[in-house]
């Protein structure tokens, strides 16, 4: 009797798995076929306002199904746990492909990979088909539980609903997302922006004048290079010696003392003289004493730049030279003036992690002339426009809130109370 009951209970689950697996495999096969037919073209979301209408329609449909369609077996199956497990596994496999195959122009990859759109896996049709299937299950599972609202299900609604909103908005907003590079030199203004690869340009509704570009570096550090000055032979685990006047440290049997340190210096005679010129690289005078032999040597080293050649100090009797590592940026920022017709110009500072917002656009500090270092006279900003960001952030906030609720629930739960119970 018990065996018969168990069989009755197990068989529908097994058939649910079979149907779910068949749906996943068929979806992938169909998506692959479609991708080959489309010559590997990416899947592009419809633009505004079609994408917004689509989101509203799909949400309404899911809500309707959730309320009215639970008595139909297909709805229960598509929003059920066996299907959830299959779509998670199915989506996992396609994400794994994206996590292994580097994005490229496809020229290095076999033709079939290009045809499947896998030179850019995340925009490929098969990848997005798997994501849509994932969304379908997530949406139906969430909507299905709306039929019987329970306080205990709050964390479920919040985390699942937030995840659905985040993925759906992220997917549908891809066609409205604009990312452009804005390159501007000091004292000049521009409203022109271009794609990273220069393939396309457009104009922003405002102009950007670069008043000043400033950059701060960390104190330069000592490194070791081979005799031919071609390869850095300093290894992780060896000390990183800050090249500040008075610093003393030991490395590879030598005691190194920093006698003089200039943040900017230009060559003069046998040594260097401090200089405020932006074209002056840092330079230091070192004294190195070989601890075993007592041999002492002194000399100047600089990392150099376009104007000043690199200089190193040969560690006589050893197989390396003392050298100065390239300075590393600590902070860089652009002081810009926003020019808008009809408005007074105003100044703002754009810095990494501190973007500014203007008329629905966000300006991020991206880069600068890295070869010139502190002499850089131009700045690269990124102009981003993503009208869906409030919806995406709502999804992220709900997901995070759901995670906190789950966390509190687990910490408060007593032993023996399984969080895994179906509610």
């Amino acid at each position, binding site marked *: 009797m018990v065996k018969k009951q168990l069989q009755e209970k197990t068989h529908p*689950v097994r058939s649910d798995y079979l149907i779910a697996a068949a749906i996943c495999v068929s979806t992938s096969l169909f998506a692959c076929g479609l991708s080959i037919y489309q010559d590997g073209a990416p899947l592009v979301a419809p633009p505004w306002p079609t994408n917004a209408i689509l989101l509203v329609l799909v949400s309404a449909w899911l809500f309707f199904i959730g309320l009215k369609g639970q008595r139909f077996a297909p709805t229960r199956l598509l929003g059920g*746990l066996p299907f*959830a*497990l299959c779509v*998670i*596994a199915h989506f*996992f496999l396609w*994400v794994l492909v*994206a*996590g*292994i*195959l*580097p994005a490229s122009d496809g020229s290095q990859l076999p033709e079939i990979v290009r045809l499947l759109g896998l030179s850019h896996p*995340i925009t490929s049709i098969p990848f997005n088909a798997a994501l849509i299937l994932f969304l379908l299950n997530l949406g139906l599972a969430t909507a299905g539980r709306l039929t019987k609202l329970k306080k205990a299900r709050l964390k479920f609604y919040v*985390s699942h609903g937030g995840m659905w909103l985040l993925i759906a908005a*992220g997917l549908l907003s891809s066609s409205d997302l604009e*990312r452009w590079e804005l390159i501007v030199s000091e004292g000049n203004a521009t409203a022109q922006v271009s794609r990273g690869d220069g393939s396309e340009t457009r104009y922003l509704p405002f102009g950007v004048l670069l008043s000043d570009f400033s950059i701060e570096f*960390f*104190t330069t550090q000592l490194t070791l290079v081979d005799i031919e000055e071609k390869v850095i032979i300093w290894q*992780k*685990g*060896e*000390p*990183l010696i800050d090249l500040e006047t008075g610093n003393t*440290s030991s490395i590879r049997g030598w005691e190194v003392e920093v006698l003089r340190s200039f943040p900017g210096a230009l060559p003069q005679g046998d040594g260097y003289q401090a200089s405020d010129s932006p074209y002056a690289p840092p330079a230091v005078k070192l004294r190195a004493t070989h601890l075993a032999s007592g041999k002492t040597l002194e000399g100047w080293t600089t990392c150099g730049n376009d104007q000043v050649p690199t200089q190193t100090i040969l560690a006589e009797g050893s197989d390396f030279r003392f050298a100065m590592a390239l300075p*590393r*940026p*600590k*902070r*860089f920022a652009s002081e810009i003036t926003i020019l808008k017709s009809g408005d007074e110009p105003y100044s703002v500072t754009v*810095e*990494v*992690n*501190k*973007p500014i917002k203007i008329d629905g656009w*966000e300006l*991020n500090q991206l880069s600068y002339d890295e070869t010139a270092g502190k002499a850089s006279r131009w700045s690269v900003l*990124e102009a*981003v426009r993503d009208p869906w*960001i409030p919806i*995406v*952030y709502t999804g*992220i906030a709900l*997901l*995070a809130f*759901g*995670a*906190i609720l*789950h*966390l509190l629930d*687990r*910490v408060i*739960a007593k*032993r*023996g109370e*399984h*969080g*895994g*119970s*179906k509610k």
Partner: protein
Amino acid sequence: MNLIQTFPFTAGFALAAWALGLATLPRKRLLGTALLAIGTLTLGGILATIWISLDRPPLRTLGETRLWYAFLLPIAAGVVCIRWKMTWPIYYAIPLAGLFLGINLAHPESWDRTLMPALRSILFVPHVLAYLLAYAFLSAAFAASIRGWRAPAGSDRCEQALEFADRSVQIGFAFLTLGLCIGAVWAKGAWGHYWAWDPKETWALLTWLGYLGYLHFRLQHPNQAKEAFLFLGAAWIVLLLCWFGLNLMPIAEQSVHTYTR
């Protein structure tokens, strides 16, 4: 004395305290617990010293994250042990933490003071700490899966291990989700977009999906303990690939998350 010179002694002291604590715990519980706490606090002291010396949070390199992990894993196991009155998880968590600390001793750091501008964000510490807490709890779950796998199916030992694993995954998964959300908000400010499909992000999503799968598997199959332990082992491998393995893959060149030097 600089960090390079002092680290082997202080980390060695922490390891010795843990080893003595584990050896003492079965016979003298109070002394054993005190020794384990001393070892963990020593590691906390090391992290605080490094933070102050470098004038930046020591969360940048893989070695630094390993150190945090070795510090947080005993705490995660301890929280679960105290909250749900178990002792055995500590016998798995401490050796695992010791292993990670041992790797740091075998591959010493240079303790670089520099921190790239993108990492100079108020969200840097919460993002990485949320992930490390998640890794600590999820590793505790993996340890439970080993214990459960070795026990006969249906035995009390097996059921206890499963219960512990479930709790650890539920807590770890919540931290994993929080880390993901904080990272998305930070990425928007630093790189202009909340999700760029950077290889590290892709593997973080794979890890998240792995444990999401586990949680759903447990809901659907509450009585299949052995399969659940296998699932946990596979998910932990994905976690390790995301944390360390990615750096060895060719795709790592496209990642902005490689801060090793």
